[in-house]
């Protein structure tokens, strides 16, 4: 067993895969600096700096994947995917279906996501529900270093397009770049367990579509992902003091969605709270409820999500994103409704 930081674990899993599979290449803006450790080991032919041309290099990543390479395309912040959305929506997601299953796109798109460091609404979105909405795209959102590495390792062997989202609050490297964390004067509400932890000595695959139960409980199921998992765990301690036992499910992948694990838990607790940093409307939080209803389950339901454009002001931002207080209030209300 080793201990690693969040982004370090992802890079380490990529390195292990790159050493074994020469088809894996990395391309994106500034990757020769951001992934300099991979650059000096694998050379510039496999770690390529791109111009600020997301539409071109994402689109090119797709056809390169169709013809033998296994590209990891980096979109610095998932918010910037807007400029390359056609490549994702109409190409990466559709090639396999259009070709009658005969042509696959083994592409990984790696991007940072999430807020909590005061960069404003064009740099702090989650967008995982928006991306997972598109049939043909898998979306991974890890919450610990071990999961991050294991899921990346899986993504690199997955025969279909995978979006790999790395929450900035979990990555000290990105917090340094974007949050100015080098300043001694700033403090972020970083969940330590998510930023640094034990990882296997050799990476093995964590299957996509398998949620993890982070804490078992009987009164209430909280489904979350990314930083939301840590916020929910923190909240569950307070709930415990109030004799409420919460079960915490970390989805790990949005799509495929591990509905079985959620179903099992909710049929036990009868009570579901979705904590989702992505936008509330038309997204993951509604999808989880709808899917359970389709399965004939009846349960109490609430959600804590982000409802509008994320404000720049740190104070307003903290109120806009799912925080422990909002999760606690929603949990108490929900459990009281049940009795």
């Amino acid at each position, binding site marked *: 067993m080793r201990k690693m930081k969040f982004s370090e674990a992802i890079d380490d899993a990529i390195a292990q895969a790159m050493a*074994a599979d020469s088809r894996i290449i990395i391309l994106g803006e500034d990757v020769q*600096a951001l992934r300099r450790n991979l*650059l000096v*080991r694998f050379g510039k032919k496999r770690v390529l700096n791109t111009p600020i041309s997301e539409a071109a290099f994402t689109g090119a990543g797709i056809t390169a994947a169709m013809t033998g390479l296994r590209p990891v395309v980096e979109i610095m912040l998932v918010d*910037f995917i807007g*400029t390359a959305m056609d490549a994702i929506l109409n190409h990466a997601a559709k090639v396999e279906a259009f070709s009658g299953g005969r042509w696959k796109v083994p592409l990984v798109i790696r991007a940072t996501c999430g807020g909590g460091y*005061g960069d404003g*609404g064009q740099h702090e979105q989650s967008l995982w529900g928006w991306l997972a909405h598109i049939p043909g795209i898998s979306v991974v959102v890890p919450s610990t270093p071990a999961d991050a590495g294991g899921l990346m390792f899986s993504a690199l062997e997955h025969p279909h397009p995978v979006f790999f989202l790395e929450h900035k609050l979990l990555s000290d490297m990105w917090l340094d770049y974007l949050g100015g964390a080098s300043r001694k*004067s700033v403090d972020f509400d970083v969940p330590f367990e998510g930023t640094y932890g034990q990882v296997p000595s050799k990476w093995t695959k964590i299957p996509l579509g398998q949620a993890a139960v982070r804490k078992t409980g009987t009164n209430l199921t909280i489904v979350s992902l990314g930083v939301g998992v840590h916020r929910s765990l923190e909240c569950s301690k307070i709930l415990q003091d109030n004799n409420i036992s919460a079960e915490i499910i970390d989805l790990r992948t949005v799509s495929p969605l591990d509905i079985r694990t959620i179903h099992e838990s909710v049929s036990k607790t009868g009570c579901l709270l979705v904590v989702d940093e992505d936008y509330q409307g038309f997204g993951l939080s509604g999808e989880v409820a709808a899917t359970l209803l389709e399965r004939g389950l009846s349960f109490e339901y609430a959600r804590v999500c982000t409802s509008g454009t994320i404000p*720049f002001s740190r104070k307003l931002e903290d109120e806009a994103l799912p925080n422990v207080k909002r999760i606690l209030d929603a949990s108490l209300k929900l459990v009281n409704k049940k009795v």
Partner: protein
Amino acid sequence: MDLWVLYKQMLRSRLFEEAVSVLWNEGLISGEMHLGTGEEGIIAGIVTQLQEGDSLALDHRGTSALLMRGIDPILLMKELLGLPDGLCSGRSGHMHLFSPELLAASSGIVGSTGPAATGFALAARYLRTGKLSISFFGEGAMNQGMMMESFNLAVTWNLPVIFVCKDDKWSITTHSRNITAGNLTDRAAVFGMPTYEVDGSDVREVWISARKCLNRARAGLGPSFILATCSHLEGHFLGDPLLRTVRKPLSELPGITIPLMKSLLQSGGASALSRLEGLTIILNQVGKTIRDRKREIRDPVKIVRKLLVTEKMQLEKLEAQVFEELAGVISSITSE
């Protein structure tokens, strides 16, 4: 051209942004902070010539342009501090500043000021004859498809836009030339608009070329393109890791070199030669940063000041005025 007006605006902007830098370092401003220090010559040479009804599409370094356009500096500073009574109610921060009164909109999405200025110009043509729009962007944005699409649209529709490319040679850690084909001015010229290349650290050069572009746009003769060189005195953004490494090697280097060497020597991967090539790329990046610092930085504020030093009294008076204004901004914010 009134150098006194230009210098005053550039100094106002410089002092304001130096104050921003202090506040950011003290942790009072969150997130990233891209300053425009070093590009004041470009901004002043253009913005001081605008009229009421002209519009501005600003990139992630829009603070300086808004100040020179006449935004209330207290409102602006409050916005950067995320205060509820800031310019945008504390909701925008420096990358997403908006002023409907000044027809100024910013975006942190690289390349997006192309379409924005094009639409501003379209509205101007129908509703505000003789008015125009400015698109400010970095040379990195020249590789964004929407920027080229905007050039085409503006030329084919003959719109009153001035596309202003502020070339500081760098896109964050990447030397733009390494990822950019051909020559940028040629690239703009093929769309069939007049192009100008100027030293952006000399506000006079910018002003003169801008004058021609503005006249042309106001006369309904269509868009133009200016490529103005500059250096960003604080690197890409405050706390820039590349600059930090160069400025404080003792504290920064170990965290970088130890994992780098480990990875360089790890078995499995490229040949020794390719690995060394990779290492060279990183060393070049750092070396280029150092060289840029030493030789190439031309500070536009100092350059214009030099032209005015002979008029000592007037200069001192003006500087005292600008200092006083900024002191007023700071004290009005701290007093609350």
